[in-house]
């Protein structure tokens, strides 16, 4: 019997593995790096409703584009912004106008939560002192306290997170879903460990990844991955570590486009709704994309 290859076209991956009403969708990437934008744009094209969007500790255009598309009911996040470029316009607008429910947390809530979700742990207790900020006062149901059985003291806890689907960018994968992060893995590997279903987008499919890098470098095992999509430049306008830089000009243009409903609609149609993902690179321009290449950072 032959081993199953997991490489499928992008549209099929989203159609098959993201439910039309997705209970919880985790999106990888941190700041303007390694955002799985090809998968995210396809989620928007296929009009998938997202009950709960879960981000890494620092989301960027990955969350902001989804929020702008109006498909998200609630968002669990510790940060949505554009780092040195400014605040996230759709996030800010949706929260201030209450068109999205914000479940605001800190970085460890997500990191501990993925760890607990991955390992079947009932919760993870916080170190003492992390209850001194005001986050747990927003909603007492959200950050819950329990008694430390060793000291008898009250401790704050983080609940397990088990996203229904995680959309993650890796730089390279083999046909069976084994994959690598060429640079930082951020919290993307934890999302992979915690999610029920994982869809990967990669810059390149490599026939035998372990032979190319050695198995010790391949730390995403294929048995955790449901589908792999080859999507060169699929992180644009964010960076893909080891392949290309973020496109600061495009990110600035995006922020500008978000300023009025007309320009936002135009952006959404031009780069997402009116083209299949296969035409995205040509829409941005091959020359522009090639000028962002940054291979050799780690070599």
């Amino acid at each position, binding site marked *: 019997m032959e081993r199953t290859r997991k490489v499928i076209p992008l549209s099929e991956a989203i159609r098959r593995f993201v439910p039309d009403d997705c209970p919880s969708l985790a999106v990888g990437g*941190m*700041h*303007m*790096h390694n955002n799985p934008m090809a998968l995210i744009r396809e989620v928007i094209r296929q009009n998938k409703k997202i009950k709960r969007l879960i981000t890494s*500790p*620092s989301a960027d255009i990955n969350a902001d584009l989804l929020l702008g598309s109006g498909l998200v009911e609630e968002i669990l*996040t*510790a*940060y*949505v*912004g*554009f*780092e*040195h*470029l*400014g*605040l*996230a*316009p759709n*996030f*800010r607008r949706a*929260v*201030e106008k209450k068109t999205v429910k914000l479940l*605001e947390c*800190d*970085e*460890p809530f997500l*990191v501990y939560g*993925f*760890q607990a979700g991955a390992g079947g742990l009932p919760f993870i207790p*916080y*170190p*003492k*002192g*992390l209850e*001194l*900020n*005001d*986050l747990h006062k*927003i909603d007492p149901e959200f950050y819950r306290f329990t008694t430390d059985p060793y000291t008898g003291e009250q401790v704050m806890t983080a609940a397990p997170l088990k996203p229904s689907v995680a959309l993650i960018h890796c730089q390279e994968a083999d046909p069976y879903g084994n994959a690598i992060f060429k*640079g*930082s*893995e*951020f*919290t993307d*590997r*934890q999302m992979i460990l915690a999610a029920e279903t994982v869809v990967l987008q990669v810059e390149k499919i490599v026939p035998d990844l372990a032979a190319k890098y050695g198995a010790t470098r391949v730390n995403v095992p294929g048995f955790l991955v449901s589908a792999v999509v080859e999507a060169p430049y699929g992180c644009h306008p964010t*960076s893909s*570590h*080891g392949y290309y*830089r*973020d496109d600061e000009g495009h990110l*600035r243009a995006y*922020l*500008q486009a978000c300023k009025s409903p007309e320009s936002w609609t135009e952006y959404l149609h031009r780069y997402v709704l009116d083209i299949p993902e296969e035409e995205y690179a040509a829409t941005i321009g091959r020359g522009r994309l090639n000028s962002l290449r*940054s291979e050799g*950072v*780690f070599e």
Partner: protein
Amino acid sequence: MSAKDYSGDKGHSQETGNPRESGRPEGKDDAGEKAYSAAELMTVVMARHLRDGEVAVMGAVSMIPMAACRLAQETHAPNLSYIAGGSGAVNPRLEPLVFSSCAAENLRADAMLPLPDVILLEGHGKRFDVFFGGGLQIDKYGNCNLVCVGDWHNPLLKGPGTVGLPFLPRAGRAVLYTTAHNARTFVEKVDFNSGPGFLDGPETWLGQGLPGEGPALVVTPLCVFDFEERSKVMRLKSLHPGVSREEVVRNTGFRPALPPEVPVTPEPTLSELVILRRLDAAGVLGKLV
């Protein structure tokens, strides 16, 4: 297009919330007469504060702390270690400096920790000596706010979120900074405490028994603050060259402790500037403030 086009929502830092423009309108004119920028002076102040053998950690948009760590390593603290934000990079050798804490360029470094390991160690309590932070708001007890201005349920301004700032009470000394020294940043009390300093003062802080030492230093384009030992209130430590005590008071939304004699912040030495400009040949620091 320039950063000016985003006057409503300027660049800010994850850990600091800093708008990129100075809150000091006359700052630009003065900068032309000086041999260094305000950001370079801030970098030098932070670098001199770091001790050999310490471990420092920082979040997003941390060009100034990163440059400070590099400068300290090349002068008095060759055994300093620092971790560059979400990249997990330990001791990046950044030349030139880059804007994003998570850019791949940070990974030209000594080592890389997966981010969950960095978060784990931030909870340890004794692994890190210095944590760089800040906020949209910073109050007189050094509490920081990156969550919202106004009431959380009806915010006047929704901030980006707090990320790792809640670790401040466990992460050694907090070195806070802002590139916008004005009365909107420095407030009597933060609207939302997302990065605890000395909480509501000594009574609330001293009972906690936490491993962190609390806020130690606040660096701005106008001055340096530390904290009064007994009251835990922010205290004017030094005035940058050409800045008056009145200017600091006018731009600070609370009454800082004001010693009778306040020295002038020592200027960067020529050798410090030579090192900084080698690290920052593109002049990133010069453009910040």
